[in-house]
Protein backbone atom coordinates (compact mmCIF):
# COMPACT_ATOMS: atom_id res chain seq x y z
CA UNK A 1 0.00 0.00 0.00
CA UNK A 2 1.26 3.48 -0.76
CA UNK A 3 0.33 6.55 1.16
CA UNK A 4 0.26 9.92 -0.47
CA UNK A 5 0.55 13.24 1.33
CA UNK A 6 -1.29 12.82 4.66
CA UNK A 7 -4.80 14.08 4.29
CA UNK A 8 -6.00 14.51 7.84
CA UNK A 9 -5.79 18.23 8.25
CA UNK A 10 -7.43 21.18 9.82
CA UNK A 11 -9.88 22.07 7.09
CA UNK A 12 -10.77 25.77 7.05
CA UNK A 13 -14.48 26.54 6.98
CA UNK A 14 -15.76 27.06 3.45
CA UNK A 15 -15.01 30.57 2.28
CA UNK A 16 -18.03 32.83 2.05
CA UNK A 17 -18.81 33.44 -1.58
CA UNK A 18 -18.83 37.20 -1.00
CA UNK A 19 -16.51 39.13 1.29
CA UNK A 20 -18.42 40.26 4.32
CA UNK A 21 -16.98 43.65 5.13
CA UNK A 22 -17.50 45.27 8.51
CA UNK A 23 -19.43 48.55 8.51
CA UNK A 24 -16.82 50.17 10.76
CA UNK A 25 -13.06 49.68 10.94
CA UNK A 26 -12.44 46.66 13.19
CA UNK A 27 -10.74 47.29 16.52
CA UNK A 28 -7.06 46.53 17.04
CA UNK A 29 -6.69 42.98 18.48
CA UNK A 30 -5.02 43.55 21.86
CA UNK A 31 -3.57 40.01 22.05
CA UNK A 32 -0.99 40.59 19.30
CA UNK A 33 2.74 41.02 19.85
CA UNK A 34 3.24 43.12 16.72
CA UNK A 35 1.18 44.81 14.02
CA UNK A 36 1.55 45.47 10.32
CA UNK A 37 -0.86 48.15 9.12
CA UNK A 38 -1.13 48.28 5.33
CA UNK A 39 -2.76 51.35 3.78
CA UNK A 40 -3.30 51.35 0.02
CA UNK A 41 -4.23 54.52 -1.87
CA UNK A 42 -4.07 58.16 -0.97
CA UNK A 43 -7.68 58.98 -0.13
CA UNK A 44 -8.48 60.67 3.15
CA UNK A 45 -10.61 57.81 4.45
CA UNK A 46 -7.76 55.33 4.10
CA UNK A 47 -5.29 57.65 5.79
CA UNK A 48 -7.68 58.30 8.63
CA UNK A 49 -8.36 54.62 9.37
CA UNK A 50 -4.70 53.67 9.10
CA UNK A 51 -3.74 56.55 11.38
CA UNK A 52 -6.24 55.52 14.04
CA UNK A 53 -5.08 51.89 13.90
CA UNK A 54 -1.42 52.87 14.15
CA UNK A 55 -2.10 55.20 17.08
CA UNK A 56 -3.85 52.41 18.97
CA UNK A 57 -1.48 49.60 17.93
CA UNK A 58 1.72 51.53 18.71
CA UNK A 59 0.66 51.83 22.32
CA UNK A 60 0.40 48.03 22.56
CA UNK A 61 3.22 46.48 20.53
CA UNK A 62 5.76 47.23 17.79
CA UNK A 63 3.88 48.46 14.73
CA UNK A 64 4.92 48.78 11.10
CA UNK A 65 2.99 51.05 8.78
CA UNK A 66 3.22 50.17 5.09
CA UNK A 67 1.80 52.83 2.77
CA UNK A 68 1.36 51.76 -0.84
CA UNK A 69 0.12 53.56 -3.95
CA UNK A 70 -0.97 50.39 -5.72
CA UNK A 71 -0.54 46.74 -4.82
CA UNK A 72 0.19 45.86 -8.45
CA UNK A 73 3.22 48.17 -8.59
CA UNK A 74 6.34 45.97 -8.30
CA UNK A 75 8.11 48.29 -5.85
CA UNK A 76 5.04 48.53 -3.62
CA UNK A 77 4.54 44.82 -3.91
CA UNK A 78 8.12 44.17 -2.81
CA UNK A 79 7.66 46.41 0.21
CA UNK A 80 4.55 44.50 1.24
CA UNK A 81 6.25 41.13 0.72
CA UNK A 82 9.21 42.23 2.80
CA UNK A 83 7.00 43.43 5.67
CA UNK A 84 5.16 40.09 5.64
CA UNK A 85 8.42 38.14 5.58
CA UNK A 86 9.73 40.10 8.54
CA UNK A 87 6.50 39.53 10.48
CA UNK A 88 6.61 36.92 13.27
CA UNK A 89 3.77 34.69 14.45
CA UNK A 90 1.84 36.79 16.95
CA UNK A 91 1.45 39.57 14.37
CA UNK A 92 -1.87 41.00 13.21
CA UNK A 93 -2.04 42.35 9.68
CA UNK A 94 -4.58 45.15 9.18
CA UNK A 95 -5.41 46.33 5.68
CA UNK A 96 -7.34 49.43 4.60
CA UNK A 97 -8.14 50.85 1.16
CA UNK A 98 -10.50 50.21 -1.70
CA UNK A 99 -11.94 46.73 -2.08
CA UNK A 100 -9.58 45.65 -4.88
CA UNK A 101 -6.50 46.67 -2.93
CA UNK A 102 -7.67 45.27 0.39
CA UNK A 103 -8.41 41.90 -1.20
CA UNK A 104 -5.00 41.93 -2.87
CA UNK A 105 -3.28 42.65 0.47
CA UNK A 106 -5.26 39.90 2.22
CA UNK A 107 -4.36 37.44 -0.53
CA UNK A 108 -0.68 38.36 -0.22
CA UNK A 109 -0.87 37.93 3.56
CA UNK A 110 -2.55 34.52 3.20
CA UNK A 111 0.07 33.49 0.68
CA UNK A 112 2.68 34.49 3.26
CA UNK A 113 1.03 32.10 5.74
CA UNK A 114 -1.45 34.30 7.62
CA UNK A 115 -4.79 32.86 8.72
CA UNK A 116 -8.08 34.68 9.28
CA UNK A 117 -7.46 35.13 13.00
CA UNK A 118 -4.41 37.21 12.08
CA UNK A 119 -6.13 39.43 9.52
CA UNK A 120 -8.37 42.47 9.79
CA UNK A 121 -9.58 44.65 6.97
CA UNK A 122 -11.65 47.72 6.21
CA UNK A 123 -12.82 48.83 2.77
CA UNK A 124 -13.23 52.52 2.15
CA UNK A 125 -15.27 51.69 -0.96
CA UNK A 126 -16.41 48.67 -2.97
CA UNK A 127 -16.33 50.33 -6.40
CA UNK A 128 -13.62 48.05 -7.72
CA UNK A 129 -12.58 44.44 -7.34
CA UNK A 130 -10.02 41.87 -8.48
CA UNK A 131 -11.59 39.82 -11.26
CA UNK A 132 -10.23 36.51 -12.49
CA UNK A 133 -11.02 35.98 -16.16
CA UNK A 134 -11.70 32.31 -16.81
CA UNK A 135 -10.64 32.77 -20.44
CA UNK A 136 -7.36 34.67 -20.31
CA UNK A 137 -6.66 33.17 -16.89
CA UNK A 138 -5.43 36.32 -15.24
CA UNK A 139 -6.61 38.63 -12.48
CA UNK A 140 -7.47 42.24 -13.40
CA UNK A 141 -8.66 45.24 -11.46
CA UNK A 142 -12.06 46.35 -12.73
CA UNK A 143 -14.48 49.04 -11.62
CA UNK A 144 -17.60 46.96 -11.36
CA UNK A 145 -19.63 44.92 -8.93
CA UNK A 146 -20.50 41.21 -8.83
CA UNK A 147 -23.37 40.48 -11.21
CA UNK A 148 -22.35 43.22 -13.64
CA UNK A 149 -20.87 42.84 -17.12
CA UNK A 150 -17.45 44.25 -18.01
CA UNK A 151 -15.05 44.06 -20.89
CA UNK A 152 -12.01 42.02 -19.87
CA UNK A 153 -8.92 44.26 -19.85
CA UNK A 154 -6.89 41.20 -20.86
CA UNK A 155 -8.83 39.48 -23.65
CA UNK A 156 -11.57 42.01 -24.49
CA UNK A 157 -14.36 39.48 -24.01
CA UNK A 158 -17.56 40.70 -22.41
CA UNK A 159 -17.58 39.00 -19.04
CA UNK A 160 -20.10 38.53 -16.30
CA UNK A 161 -18.62 38.87 -12.82
CA UNK A 162 -20.03 36.06 -10.70
CA UNK A 163 -21.04 36.75 -7.11
CA UNK A 164 -18.41 34.33 -5.96
CA UNK A 165 -15.14 35.29 -4.34
CA UNK A 166 -12.51 32.57 -4.81
CA UNK A 167 -10.02 32.52 -1.98
CA UNK A 168 -7.45 30.48 -3.82
CA UNK A 169 -7.31 33.10 -6.58
CA UNK A 170 -7.97 36.08 -4.35
CA UNK A 171 -10.48 37.18 -6.97
CA UNK A 172 -14.03 37.20 -8.18
CA UNK A 173 -14.56 34.71 -10.95
CA UNK A 174 -15.76 36.08 -14.30
CA UNK A 175 -16.66 34.34 -17.53
CA UNK A 176 -18.06 35.04 -20.98
CA UNK A 177 -21.40 36.75 -20.41
CA UNK A 178 -22.85 35.26 -23.57
CA UNK A 179 -21.62 31.67 -23.29
CA UNK A 180 -23.66 28.96 -21.65
CA UNK A 181 -21.03 27.94 -19.13
CA UNK A 182 -17.43 28.20 -18.08
CA UNK A 183 -14.81 26.89 -20.47
CA UNK A 184 -13.63 23.37 -19.74
CA UNK A 185 -10.18 22.52 -18.38
CA UNK A 186 -8.73 22.40 -21.89
CA UNK A 187 -8.91 26.16 -22.01
CA UNK A 188 -10.39 29.07 -23.89
CA UNK A 189 -12.41 28.92 -27.03
CA UNK A 190 -11.44 31.35 -29.73
Amino acid at each position, binding site marked *: *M*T*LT*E*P*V*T*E*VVPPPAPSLPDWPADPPAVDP*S*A*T*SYVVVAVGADAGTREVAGAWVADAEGRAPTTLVVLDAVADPRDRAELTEA*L*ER*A*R*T*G*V*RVMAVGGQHDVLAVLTA*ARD*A*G*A*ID*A*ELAAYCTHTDDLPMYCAHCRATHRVEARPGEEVTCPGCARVLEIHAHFTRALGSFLASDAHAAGLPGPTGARP
Partner: protein
Amino acid sequence: MTTLELLVTAAVHPVPGIRSLTLAAPDGRDLPGFVPGSHLVIECGGRSNAYSLTSDGTAPTSYTVSVLEVPDGSGGSRWVHRELRVGEVVTARLPRSLFPPVARAAKHLLVAGGIGVTPIVSHLRAARTWRRETEVHYVFREGRGAHVDDVLALTDGAAELHTDRAEFCARLEKALADQPLGTHLYVCGPAAMIDHVLDTARGLGWPESRLHCERFGLDALDPGDPFDVTLTATGTTVRVPSGTSLLEALETSGVDVPNLCRQGVCGECRIPVAAGTPLHRDLFLTEEEKAAGDALMACVSRSAGPSLEVPL
Protein backbone atom coordinates in the same frame (compact mmCIF):
# COMPACT_ATOMS: atom_id res chain seq x y z
CA MET B 1 -14.17 -2.13 15.26
CA THR B 2 -11.23 -3.71 13.49
CA THR B 3 -8.37 -5.01 15.53
CA LEU B 4 -4.85 -6.03 14.62
CA GLU B 5 -2.89 -8.96 15.98
CA LEU B 6 0.71 -7.87 16.25
CA LEU B 7 3.77 -9.99 16.92
CA VAL B 8 6.47 -8.49 19.10
CA THR B 9 9.54 -8.98 16.90
CA ALA B 10 12.02 -6.98 18.97
CA ALA B 11 12.19 -5.15 22.28
CA VAL B 12 14.99 -2.95 23.58
CA HIS B 13 15.66 -0.66 26.53
CA PRO B 14 17.31 2.32 24.84
CA VAL B 15 17.41 4.33 28.08
CA PRO B 16 16.47 3.40 31.64
CA GLY B 17 12.70 3.21 32.16
CA ILE B 18 11.80 3.03 28.49
CA ARG B 19 11.09 -0.08 26.45
CA SER B 20 10.78 0.20 22.67
CA LEU B 21 8.83 -2.51 20.88
CA THR B 22 8.84 -3.48 17.23
CA LEU B 23 5.53 -5.00 16.14
CA ALA B 24 4.70 -6.78 12.89
CA ALA B 25 1.90 -8.83 11.39
CA PRO B 26 2.45 -12.49 12.40
CA ASP B 27 2.44 -13.48 8.71
CA GLY B 28 4.76 -10.60 7.76
CA ARG B 29 2.15 -8.79 5.67
CA ASP B 30 2.09 -5.00 5.24
CA LEU B 31 0.40 -3.10 8.05
CA PRO B 32 -2.09 -0.25 7.63
CA GLY B 33 -0.36 3.07 6.96
CA PHE B 34 -0.91 6.00 9.27
CA VAL B 35 -0.75 9.77 9.45
CA PRO B 36 2.19 11.20 11.46
CA GLY B 37 1.36 11.62 15.15
CA SER B 38 -0.98 8.58 15.21
CA HIS B 39 -1.17 6.11 18.07
CA LEU B 40 -2.15 2.50 18.65
CA VAL B 41 -4.40 1.37 21.48
CA ILE B 42 -2.79 -1.84 22.69
CA GLU B 43 -4.22 -4.37 25.15
CA CYS B 44 -1.61 -4.53 27.87
CA GLY B 45 -2.50 -7.30 30.31
CA GLY B 46 -5.97 -6.13 31.28
CA ARG B 47 -5.44 -2.45 30.42
CA SER B 48 -5.87 -0.83 27.03
CA ASN B 49 -3.37 1.94 26.61
CA ALA B 50 -2.53 4.30 23.77
CA TYR B 51 1.05 4.41 22.48
CA SER B 52 2.28 6.79 19.82
CA LEU B 53 3.80 5.29 16.71
CA THR B 54 7.42 6.35 16.27
CA SER B 55 7.99 4.59 12.95
CA ASP B 56 7.30 5.73 9.39
CA GLY B 57 3.60 5.59 8.50
CA THR B 58 4.11 5.08 4.76
CA ALA B 59 3.58 1.44 3.68
CA PRO B 60 4.83 0.07 6.99
CA THR B 61 5.83 -3.55 7.48
CA SER B 62 6.37 -2.94 11.18
CA TYR B 63 5.34 -0.48 13.87
CA THR B 64 7.47 0.79 16.72
CA VAL B 65 6.31 2.26 20.01
CA SER B 66 8.24 3.36 23.09
CA VAL B 67 6.72 2.84 26.50
CA LEU B 68 7.75 4.61 29.70
CA GLU B 69 7.25 2.51 32.80
CA VAL B 70 4.86 4.28 35.18
CA PRO B 71 5.58 2.25 38.34
CA ASP B 72 2.60 3.45 40.39
CA GLY B 73 0.04 3.37 37.55
CA SER B 74 -2.68 0.83 36.83
CA GLY B 75 -0.16 -1.59 35.45
CA GLY B 76 -0.40 -1.34 31.65
CA SER B 77 3.07 0.08 31.17
CA ARG B 78 4.46 -2.20 33.88
CA TRP B 79 3.04 -5.17 31.95
CA VAL B 80 4.76 -4.00 28.76
CA HIS B 81 8.04 -3.74 30.66
CA ARG B 82 7.89 -6.84 32.83
CA GLU B 83 5.53 -9.38 31.27
CA LEU B 84 5.50 -8.93 27.52
CA ARG B 85 8.11 -11.03 25.69
CA VAL B 86 9.50 -11.04 22.17
CA GLY B 87 7.58 -13.64 20.14
CA GLU B 88 4.27 -12.93 21.88
CA VAL B 89 1.25 -11.44 20.12
CA VAL B 90 -0.64 -8.34 21.31
CA THR B 91 -4.04 -7.05 20.21
CA ALA B 92 -4.31 -3.47 19.04
CA ARG B 93 -6.82 -1.15 17.40
CA LEU B 94 -6.05 0.36 14.00
CA PRO B 95 -3.81 3.43 14.20
CA ARG B 96 -5.74 6.55 15.13
CA SER B 97 -4.77 10.12 14.37
CA LEU B 98 -5.52 13.02 16.69
CA PHE B 99 -2.28 14.93 16.29
CA PRO B 100 -1.58 15.31 12.56
CA PRO B 101 0.70 17.90 10.98
CA VAL B 102 -0.98 20.69 9.03
CA ALA B 103 0.37 20.17 5.53
CA ARG B 104 -0.03 23.84 4.60
CA ALA B 105 2.02 25.12 7.53
CA ALA B 106 4.99 27.27 6.50
CA LYS B 107 6.99 25.79 9.36
CA HIS B 108 6.47 23.23 12.11
CA LEU B 109 7.67 24.14 15.61
CA LEU B 110 7.83 20.85 17.54
CA VAL B 111 8.15 20.83 21.32
CA ALA B 112 8.60 17.57 23.23
CA GLY B 113 8.90 16.81 26.91
CA GLY B 114 10.10 13.39 28.14
CA ILE B 115 8.27 10.43 26.64
CA GLY B 116 6.12 13.00 24.79
CA VAL B 117 8.84 12.87 22.15
CA THR B 118 7.22 9.80 20.56
CA PRO B 119 4.67 11.50 18.24
CA ILE B 120 7.24 14.22 17.52
CA VAL B 121 9.61 11.58 16.11
CA SER B 122 6.82 10.51 13.78
CA HIS B 123 6.25 14.14 12.71
CA LEU B 124 9.95 14.52 12.04
CA ARG B 125 10.03 11.45 9.80
CA ALA B 126 7.19 12.88 7.71
CA ALA B 127 8.79 16.34 7.69
CA ARG B 128 11.94 14.82 6.25
CA THR B 129 9.97 12.96 3.55
CA TRP B 130 7.95 16.02 2.54
CA ARG B 131 10.87 18.44 3.09
CA ARG B 132 8.95 20.48 5.62
CA GLU B 133 10.76 23.10 7.64
CA THR B 134 10.93 22.21 11.33
CA GLU B 135 12.38 23.50 14.56
CA VAL B 136 12.60 21.11 17.50
CA HIS B 137 12.93 21.68 21.22
CA TYR B 138 13.16 18.55 23.34
CA VAL B 139 13.41 18.69 27.13
CA PHE B 140 14.16 15.55 29.14
CA ARG B 141 15.85 14.38 32.30
CA GLU B 142 19.60 13.88 31.91
CA GLY B 143 20.30 10.32 30.81
CA ARG B 144 16.59 9.55 30.33
CA GLY B 145 15.92 11.02 26.90
CA ALA B 146 14.18 8.58 24.58
CA HIS B 147 14.83 8.83 20.84
CA VAL B 148 17.54 11.49 21.24
CA ASP B 149 19.54 9.89 18.42
CA ASP B 150 16.49 9.77 16.14
CA VAL B 151 15.65 13.40 16.84
CA LEU B 152 19.21 14.50 16.09
CA ALA B 153 19.50 12.34 12.98
CA LEU B 154 16.16 13.53 11.59
CA THR B 155 17.13 17.18 12.08
CA ASP B 156 20.78 16.88 11.01
CA GLY B 157 21.75 17.81 14.54
CA ALA B 158 19.69 21.01 14.57
CA ALA B 159 17.24 19.91 17.29
CA GLU B 160 17.72 21.84 20.51
CA LEU B 161 18.05 19.50 23.48
CA HIS B 162 17.39 20.75 27.00
CA THR B 163 17.94 19.05 30.33
CA ASP B 164 17.44 22.15 32.45
CA ARG B 165 13.83 23.26 32.86
CA ALA B 166 14.50 26.94 33.52
CA GLU B 167 16.82 27.16 30.53
CA PHE B 168 14.21 25.35 28.41
CA CYS B 169 11.46 27.78 29.44
CA ALA B 170 13.61 30.80 28.65
CA ARG B 171 14.62 29.39 25.25
CA LEU B 172 11.06 28.39 24.46
CA GLU B 173 9.77 31.89 25.06
CA LYS B 174 12.39 33.30 22.67
CA ALA B 175 11.55 30.66 20.08
CA LEU B 176 7.82 31.32 20.27
CA ALA B 177 8.44 35.04 19.79
CA ASP B 178 10.51 34.51 16.66
CA GLN B 179 8.63 32.27 14.24
CA PRO B 180 7.72 33.22 10.68
CA LEU B 181 4.12 33.81 9.77
CA GLY B 182 2.46 30.49 8.95
CA THR B 183 4.18 28.45 11.67
CA HIS B 184 2.20 25.79 13.53
CA LEU B 185 3.12 24.64 17.04
CA TYR B 186 2.92 20.99 18.17
CA VAL B 187 3.56 20.06 21.76
CA CYS B 188 3.50 16.75 23.58
CA GLY B 189 4.72 15.99 27.09
CA PRO B 190 3.61 16.16 30.71
CA ALA B 191 0.32 18.03 31.19
CA ALA B 192 1.93 20.90 33.10
CA MET B 193 4.49 21.38 30.36
CA ILE B 194 1.84 21.36 27.62
CA ASP B 195 -0.15 23.97 29.55
CA HIS B 196 2.93 26.13 30.02
CA VAL B 197 3.89 25.99 26.34
CA LEU B 198 0.35 26.75 25.14
CA ASP B 199 -0.12 29.57 27.63
CA THR B 200 3.19 31.12 26.61
CA ALA B 201 2.21 30.91 22.94
CA ARG B 202 -1.21 32.45 23.62
CA GLY B 203 0.45 35.23 25.59
CA LEU B 204 2.62 35.91 22.54
CA GLY B 205 -0.41 36.35 20.29
CA TRP B 206 -0.56 32.89 18.70
CA PRO B 207 -4.12 32.17 17.47
CA GLU B 208 -5.68 28.92 18.75
CA SER B 209 -5.74 27.31 15.32
CA ARG B 210 -1.93 27.38 15.22
CA LEU B 211 -1.68 25.38 18.47
CA HIS B 212 -1.75 21.57 18.55
CA CYS B 213 -1.11 19.32 21.52
CA GLU B 214 -1.32 15.69 22.47
CA ARG B 215 -2.06 14.74 26.07
CA PHE B 216 -0.98 11.31 27.28
CA GLY B 217 -3.41 11.08 30.13
CA LEU B 218 -6.30 12.62 31.95
CA ASP B 219 -4.47 13.05 35.21
CA ALA B 220 -6.84 15.48 36.88
CA LEU B 221 -10.24 14.11 35.96
CA ASP B 222 -12.49 15.64 38.60
CA PRO B 223 -15.46 13.65 39.96
CA GLY B 224 -17.86 15.96 38.07
CA ASP B 225 -21.36 17.17 38.88
CA PRO B 226 -24.23 14.69 39.21
CA PHE B 227 -26.69 14.53 36.30
CA ASP B 228 -29.63 12.49 35.01
CA VAL B 229 -29.56 10.43 31.86
CA THR B 230 -32.80 9.44 30.16
CA LEU B 231 -32.79 6.26 28.09
CA THR B 232 -35.25 7.02 25.31
CA ALA B 233 -35.72 3.34 24.35
CA THR B 234 -37.25 2.47 27.74
CA GLY B 235 -38.12 5.90 29.07
CA THR B 236 -36.18 5.25 32.27
CA THR B 237 -34.00 7.85 33.91
CA VAL B 238 -30.72 6.94 35.58
CA ARG B 239 -28.94 9.17 38.09
CA VAL B 240 -25.17 9.59 37.57
CA PRO B 241 -23.72 10.71 40.92
CA SER B 242 -20.55 12.75 41.24
CA GLY B 243 -17.56 10.39 41.18
CA THR B 244 -19.41 7.71 39.18
CA SER B 245 -18.92 7.54 35.44
CA LEU B 246 -21.82 7.45 33.01
CA LEU B 247 -20.56 4.03 31.92
CA GLU B 248 -20.65 2.71 35.50
CA ALA B 249 -24.11 4.16 36.10
CA LEU B 250 -25.44 2.53 32.94
CA GLU B 251 -23.86 -0.80 33.87
CA THR B 252 -25.36 -0.65 37.36
CA SER B 253 -28.82 -0.14 35.91
CA GLY B 254 -28.39 -3.13 33.61
CA VAL B 255 -27.53 -1.37 30.35
CA ASP B 256 -24.55 -2.98 28.66
CA VAL B 257 -22.25 -0.60 26.83
CA PRO B 258 -19.26 -2.15 25.06
CA ASN B 259 -16.06 -0.85 26.58
CA LEU B 260 -12.39 -1.55 26.75
CA CYS B 261 -9.95 1.03 28.09
CA ARG B 262 -12.30 2.85 30.48
CA GLN B 263 -9.97 5.85 30.20
CA GLY B 264 -11.27 7.67 27.13
CA VAL B 265 -8.75 6.50 24.55
CA CYS B 266 -10.04 3.41 22.71
CA GLY B 267 -13.39 4.59 21.33
CA GLU B 268 -15.30 1.46 22.29
CA CYS B 269 -17.83 3.03 24.68
CA ARG B 270 -19.04 5.74 22.30
CA ILE B 271 -22.79 6.33 22.67
CA PRO B 272 -25.06 8.65 20.70
CA VAL B 273 -26.61 11.67 22.39
CA ALA B 274 -30.20 12.61 21.49
CA ALA B 275 -30.56 15.70 23.69
CA GLY B 276 -28.50 17.67 26.16
CA THR B 277 -24.90 18.89 25.90
CA PRO B 278 -22.04 16.46 26.51
CA LEU B 279 -19.08 17.51 28.64
CA HIS B 280 -16.32 15.82 26.66
CA ARG B 281 -13.30 14.65 28.65
CA ASP B 282 -11.93 11.91 26.39
CA LEU B 283 -8.81 11.61 24.26
CA PHE B 284 -10.61 9.80 21.43
CA LEU B 285 -13.04 12.09 19.62
CA THR B 286 -11.68 14.74 17.29
CA GLU B 287 -12.40 18.42 17.98
CA GLU B 288 -15.00 18.38 15.20
CA GLU B 289 -16.73 15.32 16.64
CA LYS B 290 -16.74 16.94 20.07
CA ALA B 291 -18.19 20.15 18.68
CA ALA B 292 -20.97 18.20 16.93
CA GLY B 293 -22.15 17.10 20.38
CA ASP B 294 -24.08 14.08 19.08
CA ALA B 295 -21.97 11.38 20.75
CA LEU B 296 -19.84 10.96 23.81
CA MET B 297 -17.45 8.51 25.44
CA ALA B 298 -19.37 7.13 28.40
CA CYS B 299 -16.31 6.04 30.39
CA VAL B 300 -15.03 9.56 31.07
CA SER B 301 -17.42 12.16 29.67
CA ARG B 302 -20.40 13.63 31.45
CA SER B 303 -23.19 16.15 30.93
CA ALA B 304 -22.63 19.91 30.80
CA GLY B 305 -26.22 20.46 32.00
CA PRO B 306 -28.50 18.70 34.51
CA SER B 307 -29.58 16.00 32.06
CA LEU B 308 -28.80 14.06 28.89
CA GLU B 309 -30.94 11.88 26.64
CA VAL B 310 -29.43 8.84 24.96
CA PRO B 311 -31.22 6.56 22.46
CA LEU B 312 -30.48 3.36 24.40
